[in-house]
């Protein structure tokens, strides 16, 4: 049985169709990227999967069960860190805890994202990249089966982005977390993903579904990846996205 099936027959905002005829199946342990033109409905699709957006025609099922609301096996990392400014770093991660927070575990998560010793720091004292790493740690706290990420690295500099990409794939592989990632960055999509899904525009629907069959660990500038990159680029051109 597949981990996740996504069927969105139609999603409208104010009588305007945003998404239509989307039918996807995601297997456990995969890294899947969604790419497409700005405004084509990628964020909306992610919000539908997460249960934040409930008004649409279609259904989402997780391990065969239809889900109709926020589901604790599905985590969400936003484009912005969205830390609660009144809580320190440890308590921001503890925000994901259902009962009593496990602070030693939080410290180990912080170590994993390279922020040991920052437990007591307030969000206002963090850089953008540090804050986003705290957000990743918070997203990982519940060990979700699926982690949805909406352009998680778009607000950080190029070097931090590369480090966060490595960090994220490392953690996802180590903990068997399935990633569904929205990105505008073709290189990022190709490097990170087992599968790149191209969403066409107006209304948004799947125009290409490309497997990236390159073994890990991958090298960013390897010829195989460059070949995959060209394929993705052609698909984007065919869909009139670039």
């Amino acid at each position, binding site marked *: 049985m597949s981990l996740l099936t996504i069927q969105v027959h139609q999603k409208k905002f104010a009588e305007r169709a945003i998404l239509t005829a989307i039918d996807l199946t995601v297997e456990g342990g995969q890294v899947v990227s969604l790419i497409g033109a700005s405004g084509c409905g990628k964020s909306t699709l992610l919000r539908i999967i997460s249960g934040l957006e409930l008004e649409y025609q279609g259904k989402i099922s997780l391990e065969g069960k239809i889900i109709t609301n926020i589901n604790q096996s599905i985590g969400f990392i936003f484009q912005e860190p969205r830390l609660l400014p009144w809580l320190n770093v440890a308590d921001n991660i503890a925000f994901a805890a259902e009962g009593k927070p496990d602070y030693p575990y939080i410290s180990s998560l912080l170590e994993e994202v390279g922020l040991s010793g920052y437990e007591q720091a307030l969000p*206002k004292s963090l850089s953008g990249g540090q804050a986003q790493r705290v957000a990743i740690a918070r997203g990982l706290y519940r060990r979700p089966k699926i982690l949805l990420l909406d352009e998680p690295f778009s607000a950080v500099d190029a070097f931090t982005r590369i480090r966060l990409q490595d960090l994220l794939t490392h953690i996802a592989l180590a903990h068997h977390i399935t990633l569904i990632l929205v990105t505008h960055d073709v290189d990022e999509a190709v490097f990170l993903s087992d599968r790149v899904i191209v969403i066409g525009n107006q209304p948004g629907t799947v125009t290409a579904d490309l497997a990236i069959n390159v073994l890990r660990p991958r090298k960013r500038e390897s010829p195989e990846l460059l070949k995959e990159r060209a394929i993705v680029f052609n698909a984007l051109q065919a869909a009139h996205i670039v």
Partner: protein
Amino acid sequence: MSIPSEAMNEAYHQPSFLQRFSKFNPSGLNISKLNLIGWLLPVLFFLGLEIGAQQQWLEARLLPPPSVIVGTFKELFQDNLLAHISISAFRVLTGFLIGSGLGLIIAILVGLTPILKQLIDPTFQALRNVPSLAWVPLLLLWFGIDETPKIIMIALGAFFPVYLNVLSGIQNVDRKLIEVGRIYGLNRGQLVKRILLPAALPYIFTGLRTALGLSWMFLVAAELIAASQGLGYLLSDGRETSRPDRVIVAIILIAILGKFSDSLLQSLENKSLRWRDTALVNHQ
């Protein structure tokens, strides 16, 4: 809060915007000197009064100099001044607590319940425009002239600023933070406690501090009209007995008590809102 490492220490002790800004101040004044500079105007004023009275440029009968005021203060102190102060402080505190407590609770309910907002808010918006003194005749008719009408009046004064600020605080909470709460499965009650109220805290404090100031104002209004004790009573008594020195002592005491109570709230505010990332942080 314990601070983990040297590096973090540094981050916390970074100078605030104002502290850095003050470095460019040509007079070279820093923040701690600015606190002292606040005393300059009142000191100059009273010095002028004293000299003016001694040189008989001013009519001491109408504008008593500080030396006379100090005498009056001693006289009043021996004659039950503390009782006047404590009854006024009691009225302010009770009225403030009742009014701001109700304001807080009702604003939270109204802020969370659209139907309640449609029901209540227009009425409150209209009522808040009624000047405080307009309530006095009604309150006197209904409750006589004992403590109740005074405390109700102060509570009325404290209610509206808290209600209005907390309501706008709740309505201004970033939708993005609320989504974080939803993603982690918070129910309505948890959402209020863990996201809405902390996020609205700056507004809550603004409301409370305005309410406290208005409480002192309404106290004086209430005591001027009907009281046999309290600082407002001293004011009207001073007028009736032609004792401007007594009026001035009462004014000074009201100013000091008002400032003192506001400072208490302000230090609580600074402590609770240390997380805020604003230019005025660390500055009072």
